[in-house]
C-alpha cells in the first residue's frame, strides 16, 4: 500500500457522490481502477453501479438535474473540472451500451464515423480494418462492409459497437451490461474479446451476471444500496478474493445468490 500513491491509476474517484436533483443516488465512492485490467462492478438493481460507470465519461450530464461532488481523476485531472470539455473526456473514455446500438448506416460507416468527426487524418480503410480485426468481427464482415449495420445479428452488432468505440482511440472502455441482450454464445465471444482487449485498454464492466464477473474480470467492486437508497461501494478487490473469500457478509450473500 505504501508506494501506491505514486501509481498512475486509470481512473481514481475520491469521495464521489452523485445526485439526481435532490436524490443522492451514489455516496462516498473511492475507487482506484487498475490500468489495462478488467474491473467489474456488480451489485443488486438500483445500487448505482451504472450511474457510477456513466459518470466516468460524463454521460450523466445528459440527465437533467444530475450532478457530482467529489472527484473523478483521469490522468491526474478531475474530469468534472469546469475547464474540461466533456467531448474530449468521451473520446478518451469510450463506452459500449447495454443494448447494441449501431448507427443506421453501413458497417464501414459505423466504425469510420467516430474517427472522422474526431479529425482523424490517416487512412480510414486501414483503421476500419484494424478495429474490426481487434473486435473479432473482420472475418465475418470483411466482404459486407457496405451492408447496413442493422442487418447483423445482435452479438455481431455489439462487437461492431466495440469496434466503433476502438476507432476513436480511447484509453478506457466502459461497458454497461454489454451482454444482457445477447445469447450465451455471443456473450462468451464478447468475454473472450474483452480479455484480448485488456492487453491494450482498461476495461470497466457493469454486469448483473455474477459468473461473468467471476470469469472475465481481474478486479471486482461490489455495490449495494444503503437504507437511504443511496448506493455505495462495500467491497473492492481482486476478483478471486472477492468471490472466494469476501470480507463482508453482504457481499457473500449476494455472490452466493441469497439476494439480489
Amino acid at each position: 500500500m505504501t508506494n501506491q500513491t505514486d501509481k498512475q491509476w486509470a481512473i481514481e474517484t475520491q469521495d464521489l457522490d452523485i445526485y439526481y436533483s435532490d436524490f443522492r443516488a451514489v455516496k462516498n465512492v473511492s475507487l482506484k481502477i487498475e490500468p489495462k485490467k478488467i474491473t467489474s462492478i456488480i451489485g443488486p438493481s438500483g445500487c448505482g453501479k451504472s450511474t457510477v460507470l456513466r459518470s466516468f465519461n460524463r454521460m450523466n450530464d445528459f440527465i437533467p438535474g444530475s450532478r457530482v461532488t467529489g472527484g473523478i481523476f483521469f490522468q491526474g485531472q478531475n474530469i468534472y473540472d469546469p475547464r474540461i470539455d466533456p467531448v474530449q473526456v468521451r473520446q478518451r473514455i469510450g463506452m459500449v451500451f447495454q443494448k447494441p446500438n449501431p448507427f443506421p448506416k453501413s458497417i464501414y460507416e459505423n466504425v469510420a464515423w467516430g474517427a472522422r468527426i474526431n479529425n482523424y487524418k490517416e487512412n480510414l480503410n486501414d483503421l476500419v480494418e484494424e478495429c474490426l480485426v481487434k473486435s473479432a468481427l473482420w472475418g465475418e464482415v470483411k466482404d459486407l462492409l457496405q451492408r447496413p449495420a442493422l442487418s447483423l445479428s445482435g452479438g455481431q452488432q455489439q462487437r461492431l459497437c466495440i469496434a466503433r468505440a476502438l476507432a476513436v482511440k480511447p484509453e478506457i472502455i466502459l461497458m454497461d451490461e454489454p451482454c444482457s441482450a445477447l445469447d450465451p454464445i455471443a456473450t462468451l465471444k464478447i468475454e473472450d474479446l474483452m480479455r484480448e482487449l485488456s492487453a491494450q485498454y482498461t476495461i470497466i464492466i457493469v454486469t448483473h451476471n455474477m459468473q461473468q464477473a467471476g470469469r472475465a474480470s481481474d478486479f471486482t467492486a461490489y455495490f449495494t444500496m444503503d437504507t437511504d437508497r443511496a448506493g455505495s461501494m462495500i467491497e473492492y478487490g481482486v476478483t478471486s478474493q472477492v468471490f472466494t473469500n469476501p470480507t463482508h457478509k453482504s457481499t457473500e450473500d449476494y455472490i452466493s445468490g441469497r439476494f439480489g
Partner: protein
Amino acid sequence: MKNPLNLVSTTTYGRDLNLEQRQKKATIWKALFRLSTLVGVVALAILIISIVNQAFGLVAIEDTNDRNDFISTSIKEVTKTELIQLIETNLSTNRVRTLDREEPLVERSRHDLMALVETEVFKQRIVDSYSLFGSIFTPNTFRDQVAKKHPEAIVEFKSWFTPQFLQESMSKTPELAGIRTALFGSLFLILITISVAFPLGVSAAIYLEEYARQNTWLSRVIQTNIDNLAGVPSIIYGILGLTIFVRAFEPITSGRLFGYEGANGRTILAAGLTMALLILPILITNAQEAIRAVPNSLRQASYGLGATQWQTIWYHVLPYALPGILTGTILAISRALGETAPLIIVGAATYITKDPSGLFSNFTAIPIQIYNWTTRPQQEFRNIAAVAILVLMFMLLSMNAVAILWRNKIQNKR
C-alpha cells in the same frame, strides 16, 4: 352458435365465461368501426363525383353573329387563306395585330384558325350547360329545354377540362377562361412559403427538442402556444399578414426598397410570408414529434464517441427524423395550397391575366379562382370551377406523391 370444438358448456372451472355476450359486444364494436370508415369513404366519393359531374357534360352552343352573313358553305370547306381573310376583315386591327404577335396567322394550323373564326368572328358562345349524369341519363330533357330557349343552338358533349384551360388566363367568358395565372400563382406561393417556413420550422423544432431545457414553465408555455396556434382560424393569419407584411413592411413587400415602382404591399411575397406563418406551427409540432421519436440510444452512441451536440444532431438525429419531418411538411403544404381566406385578406387579385413574374408581382391562386368562379351567376363558371378543383387536387396528389417517394427512398437506405 358456432361450436366446432364441441365445448357444449360455456362454463370453465365453475365460472360462467359469459362468452356469448362478450362476443356480441365485440361484433357490435367491429360493425361500428366499419361503419365509420364507410361513412368517410362515401363522403369522399360523393365529393369527387359531384366535382366530376360538373366538369363534363352536354352544352348548347350558339353563334352570336349569324355565320351565314360571313360564309355561304360549311366552315369545314373554307380554305386557309379565306379563314385568314375572314379574321383580318372582321376583327379590329388591334385584335389582329395582337393575334399576329402571339403567333403569325399564316403559320397557324387550319384547326386553330377555324376555332378563331368561330369564337371571334361568329362569336360562338355556350349558352347553356348540363351536368354529366343528366347528360348520360336524361339528355332529352336538356335538348328540349335548349330547343325551347335557344332554337338556333347546337347541343354537343363537352369536356370542360381542355389543354386550353391550363394555358389561358382569366377571362370574362367562361369557355375562354383558363387557370394558368392561378396555377403559376399557387406554385410560386408554395415555393415562397416552404422556403421560408421549412428552415424556420425545423430549426425551431431542433432548438425546442435538443437544446431548450424541458419541463420548465417557459418551455411549457411556448409549447402550449405553438400547439394552440396550429388551430387558430386561418383568417386571423390573414389579418396578421395584412397588418404586418402588407402594411408595416410595405417598403419591403412591395419591393420599393429594391427599386420597384408603383407597387403596393399586396404582393405574392406578402402572401407567401403570411402562409409561412400559418403553417409554421404545424411544421414545428410535426418536426418536434419526429425528433422526439429518435431513439435516445442513437444520441448516446454518438456522444459516447466524442461527438459534439451539433455533430450528433446533424449526423444522427436529423437524418433519422427526416422522413417524419417530410410527412409533416406534406401536411403543411397541402394546407397552404388549399387555403383561401388569408389570401383574400392579404389581397390576392381575383381578376388578373398576368403571370407572377417575381417576388413583388400581384397574383392569384387556384382556390381564389375557384371561390371567384363559384360565386358567379352563370352555370358555365361553375363548370370551370369544378375543373379548377380537379387541377388543384391533381396538384396536391402529385406534390404529395413526390414527397412520399422521397421519404421512402430515405427510409429504405437504412
